[in-house]
């Protein structure tokens, strides 16, 4: 005995395909009711009519429409009107799915990280342009560490002469026209507002990363945790990556070059950004990267499967281990000692 069902009806047939009994939904085919039934099926559940028949025919094998083992029978498929209603419901479900996608923290984190990268690139480009532009009119101007303040300085100046005074240089023989100066000044304003925007973006990344990746944020900081998660295409995939991959995420060019030409493989990718790696002597960076990457992988699994997040105490244990490595190798190994 075979029990077939779809979103609207259920039926029981014998081995020869003769329909023995059927139950068809006789309620109002409202959109929300159809959507509910489609969702039940999508989750692997049974509709009401199928449960009724299952009770009546406990020995029947229950199979969803389309399963291979079902015999050919005159199953009660939906008529054109019912099908049209189901199609409309399916479209509504798709729209719902699209709207819910905004709730996916992986996607949101990705957009935040990419936006902040793009804004940083734009900011650096514009800042460089501003410097060139000012130096065009004021060739003697020099900027050391106060390059980043230039935007503000330009924005606060009413004209080129005032800017020259602020920068402690002489006014030039040739100056910009009125509209040119206006443009230059507004450009400077733009550069200085970018600073604030970048900071706000990074704060948003920090907040979301601390919530979405608590263990890794504790271990390597929310910004780096976010970057690794985004490069890994999501928290779950991040958790499943081998730690060797985590170690070189961000060094793809070097890695594939190594595969192609036999050049030495990269020791670290984005992980390099962490002071434990970048501030260590060159000959231990590889060891530390490896250790750190494996700890990151563990933390990623805790985050993805929502276990008890790491605390500062757990991170300290890792730090102790890193210190051990540093102490074990105070000098570079000679290559001849083998």
């Amino acid at each position, binding site marked *: 005995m075979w029990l077939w069902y779809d979103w609207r009806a259920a039926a029981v047939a014998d081995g020869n395909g003769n329909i023995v009994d059927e139950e068809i939904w006789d309620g109002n085919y409202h959109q929300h009711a159809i959507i509910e039934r489609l969702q039940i*099926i999508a989750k692997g559940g049974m509709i009401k009519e199928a449960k009724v028949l299952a009770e009546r025919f406990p020995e029947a094998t229950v199979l*969803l429409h*389309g399963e291979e083992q079902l015999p050919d029978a005159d199953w009660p*498929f939906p008529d054109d009107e019912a099908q049209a209603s189901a*199609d409309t419901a*399916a479209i509504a*479900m*798709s729209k719902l799915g*699209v709207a819910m996608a905004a709730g996916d923290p992986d996607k949101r984190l990705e957009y935040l990280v990419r936006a902040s990268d793009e804004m940083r690139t734009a900011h650096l480009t514009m800042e460089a342009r501003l410097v060139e532009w000012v130096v065009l009119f004021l060739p003697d101007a020099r900027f050391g560490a106060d390059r980043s303040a230039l935007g503000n300085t330009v924005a606060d100046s009413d004209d080129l002469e005032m800017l020259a005074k602020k920068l402690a240089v002489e006014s030039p023989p040739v100056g910009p026209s009125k509209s040119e100066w206006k443009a230059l000044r507004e450009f400077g304003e733009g550069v200085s507002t970018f600073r604030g925007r970048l900071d706000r973006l990074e704060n948003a990344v920090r907040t979301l990363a601390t919530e979405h990746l608590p263990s890794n944020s504790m271990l390597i900081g929310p910004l780096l945790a976010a970057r690794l998660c985004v490069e890994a295409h999501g928290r779950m995939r991040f958790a499943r990556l081998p730690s060797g991959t985590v170690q070189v995420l961000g060094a793809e060019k070097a890695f594939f070059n190594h595969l192609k030409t036999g050049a030495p493989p990269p020791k670290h990718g984005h992980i390099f950004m962490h002071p434990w790696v970048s501030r260590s002597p060159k000959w231990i960076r590889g060891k530390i990267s490896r250790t750190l990457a494996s700890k990151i992988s563990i933390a990623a699994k805790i985050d993805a499967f929502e276990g008890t997040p790491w605390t500062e105490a757990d991170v300290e244990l890792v730090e102790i281990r890193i210190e051990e490595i540093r102490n074990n190798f105070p000098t570079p190994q000679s290559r001849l000692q083998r």
Partner: protein
Amino acid sequence: MSKKNRSRKEDLSWAVRKDGRALWSINANPRSSVYGESLRRFSGVEYRRWDPSRSKLGAAIIRTKRNPALLLPLAGETILYLGAGHGTSISHLHDHLCGHDNHQGGRLVCVDLAPRCLRDLTHLADSRPGLIPVLGDARKFSAWGVLMPRKVKWLFQDVSQAGQVEIFIKAANRFLADDGIGLLSLKAASERWTGDDEAQVFANVEIALEQAGLTVEESIDLAGFEDNHMLFAVRKPSNN
């Protein structure tokens, strides 16, 4: 009349016209362009240009060595499209299967995993009745299979995933009717690297399809439009 140039125009269907290397379909939604394609009127009817560099189905129609009409489903039928993408090929299929206000009575069930693509498909569905976009995994038939009560005569798959051949074979078993046509767009780079060159990869796919009981009617190389891609046109033989 006989001295006039040989017209390379051929109507592949009521809505699809091939003119040398150019492909056009009658716009089911006049005065709107779906992906920036040009619109043009021929004898008072507005056609949309089917860009073969954006649509693998379009590329296959241009490149096929057989009658191109063999690659199209019949107007007014129900079809299944796995890996619908942003709706480029689908919009032209809709022009042909449904037409304005779906006067042909066609039905396109289009499945894709990416919400970003579904966003575009659901917008398309607003102005093209007969188009049913589904946010789902092409591999998980049980989640959306109830939308296909009967088997279809035409199946298209373009998922560019590892295991795409197995997915296609399973889908053909489940959804393709006897004597139906299945089109598999295959990206060589998506297949697991085993050291074979591209030609061997494609040859292996043909073998797998034949072993699954599907008759490979043509393997169309899309190079020039979509490099390293091959489109396999198969037919499911009717059981006697």
